[in-house]
């Protein structure tokens, strides 16, 4: 932990800032800046104060572990320090200190620390501070770990290291390196999973295969020469004097029980993609990996994450086409993370991504048109078989459009809507985006920005702020008058008992309809009125709890099937109040699907249930998560999935099943192992075990 600033001596603060901010001024002054840092650190080191030396060592190690963009910079500084006799031992101590952190890699939940340390070690090899033979040996360690592990934790570290190490490794240790590549080929062939590792491996393989033709190598070398990551190329003479640390090292491989899953990439943005060859550009993959690392390391602080992205753009001298590629990779990576709907432990919310996208686009306001076009390209390529993807994406984009002065291509988005295809997934996408957009901003405020035909179309849709009508109108009027009198629960019950000319179930149902109408006025009405009235209905001898739950769910569906917002809010509220249960929800869903309700209504319910289950799990507040209940829910869902022909509904059911099984694992680990044994799908088991 870093000390509180005002307690730290100024020289130590200065050293810390100097090391941390190395390279931040930009590519134009790199050479001068790095030279200056080396001189200043040399001067401080010469003072021979132990706390100053310790501060230097610790700062370097911290920054090397946490700033993947600057691996090359720190390697360059250390290389330059090693060429001076007075600071050679400083370089040695820093490297040895970092090697002591290698055992920590296996203890982490994600491979990020391993990736960053190995990237730095590869740059140390590239500058000549570390022996190539030792470095390639540690790649063998990782490969061994990858072979023996159920999840691709070590494989991820290995693959993300290779692009940074491969040129030097091929140059100095070709036979061993090719051996490693062949072993990785075998591992990847066995894997058969198309995710970020798959694409990274494709790009590495294509690069290596093309190396003999030299075209890719030249492009890559060009990229390296002008790039921020490898400034040691600016010091060719000094690099010949670098003193190598003659020390072997190993990465302790520990057998890990926890599964780690790499991100899916559902939409690719390869410039050089041909149908036959599937060439994947390694530059895109390296950039993509860097984006994942930066988000992972800086996600708790928006200002700094944006700063890191700006740093990338300011410090790497990108040509216009490289800039466009970076922008596309950034947007595609962020949106791919948004639409990754299969549950992940480290999943971030859509508000995180939309907020980040907005802040980044605001700093690139000159290119806002290109930003929006890239987003449109992404949507055009989006998978068309998953409504949860639509939900996540519409959350993100509705917020983004509100903050980009509505400079979207309205015709392009609205053009996806086809009034002749009532059930099409594109229609659902358009409806979701516009519903969420016009929930975040009142249409009245932006009539001059929205085309009239869209406003007219939107006004014809069922108003999501209003429930559908009552069934028993005259009875509802009577009950509404009681509600207006603000009777308490007991008084209300007495009044309801006096209504004898209707079946008691009809009375309860109508009461719930009236209540749902009242609570729809605001969230505050929901909180106050649901607690006031629903708690008395749950008392014994009034109505059986199962019956109440069933009627409640049927009523919610009847009145609010057009509004995902209200479905989500009410399911969550009534679950919390224990008016309904998870099992009742699944049975209700089963009935809705069997009744062959309108597809869009089914989609709305599926989305709401998925959201509610996911949030229960996040809070560890899963209602009634006993073995028997979850087993029953799992059985019903499995049958529904097997019988369902519609792949859209099927994929959502699978997600809901995952959510409930994950919830069960979090709340009842030992019993969940029993249930997991009954599950046939390896993929589902892996996903659950990653939590």
């Amino acid at each position, binding site marked *: 932990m870093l000390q509180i600033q005002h307690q730290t001596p100024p020289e130590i603060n200065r050293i810390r800032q100097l090391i941390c901010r190395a390279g931040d001024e930009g590519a134009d002054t790199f050479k001068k800046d790095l030279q200056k840092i080396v001189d200043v650190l040399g001067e401080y080191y010469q003072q021979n104060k132990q706390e100053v030396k310790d501060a230097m060592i610790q700062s370097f190690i911290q920054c090397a572990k946490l700033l993947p963009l600057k691996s090359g910079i720190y390697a360059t500084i250390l290389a330059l320090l090693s060429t001076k006799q007075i600071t050679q031992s400083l370089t040695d101590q820093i490297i040895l200190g970092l090697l002591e952190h290698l055992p920590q890699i296996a203890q982490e939940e994600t491979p990020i620390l391993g990736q960053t340390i190995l990237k730095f070690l590869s740059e140390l090899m590239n500058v000549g501070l570390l022996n190539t033979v030792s470095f390639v040996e540690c790649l063998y360690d990782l490969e061994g770990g990858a072979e023996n592990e159920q999840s691709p934790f070590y494989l991820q570290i290995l693959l993300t290291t290779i692009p940074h190490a491969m040129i030097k490794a091929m140059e100095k240790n070709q036979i061993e390196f090719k051996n490693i590549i062949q072993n990785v080929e075998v591992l990847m062939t066995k894997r058969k999973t198309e995710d970020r590792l798959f694409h990274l491996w494709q790009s590495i393989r294509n690069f290596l295969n093309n190396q003999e033709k030299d075209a890719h190598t030249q492009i890559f070398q060009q990229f390296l020469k002008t790039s921020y990551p490898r400034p040691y190329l600016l010091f060719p003479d000094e690099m010949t004097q670098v003193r190598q640390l003659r020390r072997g090292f190993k990465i302790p491989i520990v057998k890990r029980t926890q599964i780690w899953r790499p991100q899916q990439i559902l939409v690719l943005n390869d410039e050089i993609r041909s149908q036959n060859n599937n060439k994947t550009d390694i530059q895109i993959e390296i950039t993509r990996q860097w984006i994942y690392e930066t988000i992972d390391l800086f996600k708790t602080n928006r200002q700094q994450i944006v700063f890191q992205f700006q740093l990338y753009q300011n410090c790497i001298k990108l040509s216009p086409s490289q800039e466009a590629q970076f922008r596309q990779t950034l947007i595609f990576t962020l949106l791919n993370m948004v639409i990754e709907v299969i549950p992940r432990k480290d999943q971030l*919310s859509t508000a995180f991504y939309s907020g980040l996208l907005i802040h980044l686009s605001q700093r690139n306001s000159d290119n806002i048109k290109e930003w929006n076009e890239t987003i449109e390209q992404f949507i055009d390529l989006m998978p068309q078989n998953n409504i949860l993807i639509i939900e996540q994406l519409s959350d993100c984009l509705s917020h983004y459009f509100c*903050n980009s002065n509505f400079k979207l291509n309205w015709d392009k988005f609205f053009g996806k809507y086809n009034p002749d295809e009532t059930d099409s997934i594109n229609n659902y996408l358009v409806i979701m985006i516009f519903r969420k957009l016009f929930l975040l901003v009142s249409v009245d405020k932006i009539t001059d920005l929205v085309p009239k035909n869209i406003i007219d179309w939107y006004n014809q849709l069922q108003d999501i702020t209003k429930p559908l009508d009552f069934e028993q109108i005259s009875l509802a009027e009577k009950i509404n008058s009681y509600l207006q009198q603000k009777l308490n629960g007991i008084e209300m019950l007495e009044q309801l008992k006096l209504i004898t000319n209707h079946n008691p179930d009809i009375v309860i149902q109508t009461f719930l309809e009236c209540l749902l109408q009242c609570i729809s006025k605001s*969230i505050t009405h929901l909180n106050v009125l649901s607690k006031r009235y629903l708690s008395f209905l749950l008392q014994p001898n009034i109505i059986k709890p199962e019956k109440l739950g069933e009627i409640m769910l049927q009523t919610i569906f009847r009145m609010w099937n057009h509004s995902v917002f209200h479905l989500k809010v009410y399911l969550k509220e009534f679950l919390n109040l224990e008016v309904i249960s998870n099992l009742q929800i699944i049975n209700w869903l089963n009935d809705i699907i069997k009744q062959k309700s309108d597809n869009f209504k089914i989609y709305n319910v599926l989305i709401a249930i998925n959201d509610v289950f996911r949030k229960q799990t996040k809070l560890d507040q899963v209602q009634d998560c006993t073995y028997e209940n979850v087993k029953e829910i799992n059985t019903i869902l499995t049958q529904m999935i097997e019988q369902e022909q519609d792949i859209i509904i099927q994929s959502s059911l699978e997600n809901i099943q995952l959510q409930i099984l994950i919830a069960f694992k979090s709340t009842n680990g030992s019993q969940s192992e029993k249930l997991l044994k009954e599950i046939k799908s390896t993929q589902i088991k892996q996903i659950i075990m990653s939590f």
Partner: protein
Amino acid sequence: MSNLNAASLYENLQQPISQYYDKSSNLTREEYFYKLSISTTLYLGNLSIYTTEEQIFELFNRVGAGVRRLIMGRNKETGKAIGFCFIEYFNHEDAKEAHEYLDLLKLDERAIRVDWDIGYSEGREYGRGTGGNQVRDSYRKVADPERPNVQSNRGRGRSYNNNGGRRKQADDDESDNSGGGYKKRGGNRSNNNY
């Protein structure tokens, strides 16, 4: 979860947790800022009086495990919304995410200010300013059609621009008086309109 925290390396880029200190909280500054550092409650300011609870809930419920509670700021005399609210999350991490990634972004065509709060207690939902509105509306120099219409201390005839310059707009709106360099915010006491 990993304990890696790269953000701590750039301490000098860190903003203070909040610019606002509520003197009526009866807490010392140390106690006050400590409470903020573990708080699960956010204050949302610069809202339009026409912005509905559903609009606020829709956006802020997208974070983490969702919103635990939403309390709208109200005029004690009229019961009407006066342009602020409290949002309570289930944990500090979710509140932090909302604070980091939703602050100064637009909702209902206004840049909303998201600030930490020590936690809701009864009465804090009421405005402390003239006529039961927020204090800052009493000192508003230019008319704002989306904020409570307060007669005292009004303006110089500049027309209000709702659209441009988010940060500047939010700063202008919040640039009122209060001693000691801290900005004024909101309210007091209780009601039942349901």
